[in-house]
């Protein structure tokens, strides 16, 4: 008989585990349940599995891990739970305890423990991967997140963008000052994330230009690394996640704002304190770090308070109809719902149209899409149908992970919509 001493992370979220009353309302919201229609997919089922793990009825088997991984952590269940159960936190903690007890399986152990925390080496491997990508994969517009995604995609034929010929950090200086004559009102750190760095460097350059033009000095600290989301949230490897968190905290120590263009990175970094703070020092440092993080749209609307005229739409997008996909990490995790819509609605040069269920998960969810690509595709199909129903020319979002997924699904369906980051709309 096991004691709950074996489950130190789950114990931290015991209150949430106990809150669930098994009412089953989550069935109406869970994107995974809505594809599979089996109880172990939905929040209530997962809560019951974790309770069984704790009371010793079930063991931390591979099947248990499979069930716990079968969740996009989209948070829709938690948002709608009448008892207020924070199921994603419980699942993340359970993943962590499973990893601590049983370890990670190949190849994730190599990728997460060894490669992702080593930024330069990771860049080199991604580069190597890009050569193989050219040989084996269909090329599409745009460009790969983690090596693991690449490995998975290689076998399954995902339509993914290409690795950029030159990474962002190789293309821009560490300190980017506003052009001559523009005064510096703010100095911010830019957390570029793996995706913008390796896949969408042009987006990064656009954001730097946009900010500098609007009186913001942009620092791209060289010491920054991966946010750690796939490692501690996806795979439950908290020890490695902590190393990555410490790296990023150190890299941005001197800066007052940390700007991100990836909702997943932002929310993962804000969650360092929730999952990774194992002592008072880390708790303090992670809390302070979290307070500085702003999503780019949140920074533009709430801090800079830019007028509509500051958003100069690039010539090729003028007159286009644009719709918005709200990333789970942006809306439900960071609570940034209105800011991007405010920007889109205020621009006279485009026509904004809200898609049905704009905040519904696209099914990417990082590691989830590696483990369960077919399921991830089915969830994405519903998003594709929503996009299609708007008749928009362009779908914009604020998370390169969602962007990859939307590119994949619109391409698979032969849809004409261009998928972009919201900041790519601008000059």
């Amino acid at each position, binding site marked *: 008989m096991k004691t709950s001493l074996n489950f130190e992370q789950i114990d931290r979220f015991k209150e949430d585990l106990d809150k669930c009353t098994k009412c*089953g309302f989550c069935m*109406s919201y869970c994107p995974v349940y809505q594809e599979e229609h089996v109880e*172990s997919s939905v929040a209530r089922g997962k809560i019951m599995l974790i309770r069984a793990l704790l009371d010793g009825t079930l063991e931390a088997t591979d099947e248990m891990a499979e069930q716990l991984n079968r969740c996009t952590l989209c948070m829709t269940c938690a948002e709608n739970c*009448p008892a207020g159960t924070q199921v994603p936190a419980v699942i993340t903690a359970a993943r962590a305890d499973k990893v601590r007890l049983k370890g990670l399986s190949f190849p994730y152990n190599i990728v997460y423990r060894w490669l992702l925390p080593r930024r330069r080496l990771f860049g080199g491997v991604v580069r190597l991967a890009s050569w193989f990508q050219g040989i084996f994969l269909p090329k599409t517009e745009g460009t790969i997140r983690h090596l693991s995604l690449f490995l998975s995609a290689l076998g399954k034929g995902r339509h993914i963008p290409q690795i950029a010929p030159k990474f962002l950090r190789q293309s821009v200086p560490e300190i980017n000052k506003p052009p001559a004559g523009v005064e510096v009102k703010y100095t911010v750190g830019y957390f570029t994330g793996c995706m913008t760095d390796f896949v969408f460097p042009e987006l990064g350059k656009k954001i730097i230009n946009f900010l500098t033009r609007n009186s913001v000095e942009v620092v791209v600290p060289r010491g920054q690394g991966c946010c750690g989301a796939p490692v501690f949230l996806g795979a439950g490897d908290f020890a490695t996640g902590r190393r990555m968190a410490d790296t990023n905290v150190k890299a941005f120590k001197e800066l007052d704002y940390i700007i991100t263009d990836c909702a997943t990175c932002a929310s993962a970094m804000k969650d360092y304190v929730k999952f990774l703070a194992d002592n008072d020092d880390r708790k303090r440092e992670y809390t302070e770090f979290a307070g500085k993080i702003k999503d780019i749209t949140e920074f533009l609307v709430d801090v800079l308070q830019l007028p509509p005229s500051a958003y100069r739409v690039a010539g090729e997008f003028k007159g286009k109809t644009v719709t918005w996909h709200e990333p789970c990490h942006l809306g439900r995790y960071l609570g940034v719902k209105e800011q991007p819509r405010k920007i889109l609605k205020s621009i006279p040069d485009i026509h904004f149209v809200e898609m049905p269920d704009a905040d519904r998960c696209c099914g990417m969810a990082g590691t989830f899409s590696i483990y369960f690509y077919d399921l991830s595709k089915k969830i994405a199909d519903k998003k594709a149908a929503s996009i299609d129903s708007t008749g928009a020319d362009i779908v914009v979002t604020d998370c390169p992970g969602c962007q990859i997924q939307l590119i994949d699904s619109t391409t698979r369906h032969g849809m004409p919509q261009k998928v972009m980051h919201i900041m790519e709309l601008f000059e």
Partner: protein
Amino acid sequence: MFNAKHVDQLRRIVGKDNVLATQEELLAYSYDATNMWQHLPDVVVLPTNANQISDILKLANESRIPVTPRGGGTNVSGGSIPIKGGIVLCTTRMNRIIEINRTNLNATVEPGVILQDLQEALAKEGLFFPPDPQSAQGCTMGGVVAENSGGPSCLKYGVAKQYVLGLEVVLADGRIVKLGGLTPKNRTGYELAMLFTGSEGTLGVISKITLRLLPSQKSSQTIVAVISDVAVAGETVTEIIASGVLPSKVEFVDNWTFEKFRGLLPDEILDKSQVILLIQVDGLPETVEAEAQQVVDICQSRAGEVKVAQNQAEADRYWQARTAHFSDISSRTHTIVNEDVSVPRDKIADFIKLGQESAKKYDVPISFAGHVGDGNFHPVVLTDSRNKEHYNRSLKCVEEIIEIALSLGGVLSGEHGIGLEKQRFLKKAMDPAAIEIMKAIKDVLDPNHILNPGKIWEETSD
């Protein structure tokens, strides 16, 4: 009885992906929304059509394997717990809305359609299926019919049985039978579709449902009244109904769940009140306005605060607070004993008063909420099954409350059904001859007692 080779046979019937047999998967089908029982099935099968259900039942019937039909598993009676093991036959993958017909005012659906999904699809067509159990977000149509579900709107519109026109049912021996039809009037033979409506999965498996629909109401208005005293709340309801207004909903929550209303209603009034009544009137805009005023006038003389929701968003917030009641109460304690009695409307105030006295006598916390407009109450005793002494007192209190309801001319279950939860009270609540008739019907339709065994009546009286 069940053995491993049955798993292979079931896989041949429904395909590999539609059979679940790992320990983890089975655990996820061992419970429902009650918290007193849990039992593992031996296997879970997810058929995708009636022929597959037929083959599953033939196999089970030949091998005498218990079969527990299940949809969303949101019931609060223990009805979908596989208390005898065997097969859980889960219909959640039969989730097509086959047809919505605006001219015939009917819809034909498979049993696994989630009620809320149906309601949303109907709303787009300007139509409406009134039963609205609080579990609408997870419960499936097969369960809505098999449990004869209710909900707040049943005050004006009636329960599920009033909307069942036709059923396709698979019997225990595998026969697929069509009952009723597509028309609102149908006087052909016995009302056999009604036999399966409310049968709690003990007589057959529902594989297709044709429902009668109503056109959506053009307008509605929500009124909230905060009342200091339980008995006064009861009288208020009685007076509203007697005044000739028939609201679509009159709901009652006591101060156990006031937290959900904080920020919506003034704290100083909530702090000194015992009851919130939520009332909805619906119909044509001009009727709604007049009826809402009538309700407000009646409430005003008795309530500390009366508020009319200014828009749909505000109304939705009140109704969400009401919907959260069950979860809210459940999350306050380890175990709740949730009852479902229904009393005649003119006995509401007496019932609550006697119920509170009983809770005082047994020294257990009790919360009253429910569809007070039709006399259907959910008294909830908060206890902890690990504390035997407290738990036993709670059970005694509940037993007394049921007796109070019965003595006032009420019934044991208004809308949850008997399942496991209420079978110990069945003999008190039903004519013995009626129980014999039920058993005789069971023997005709399911002679080997494979369908949802262990439910409705106690084993010993079998």
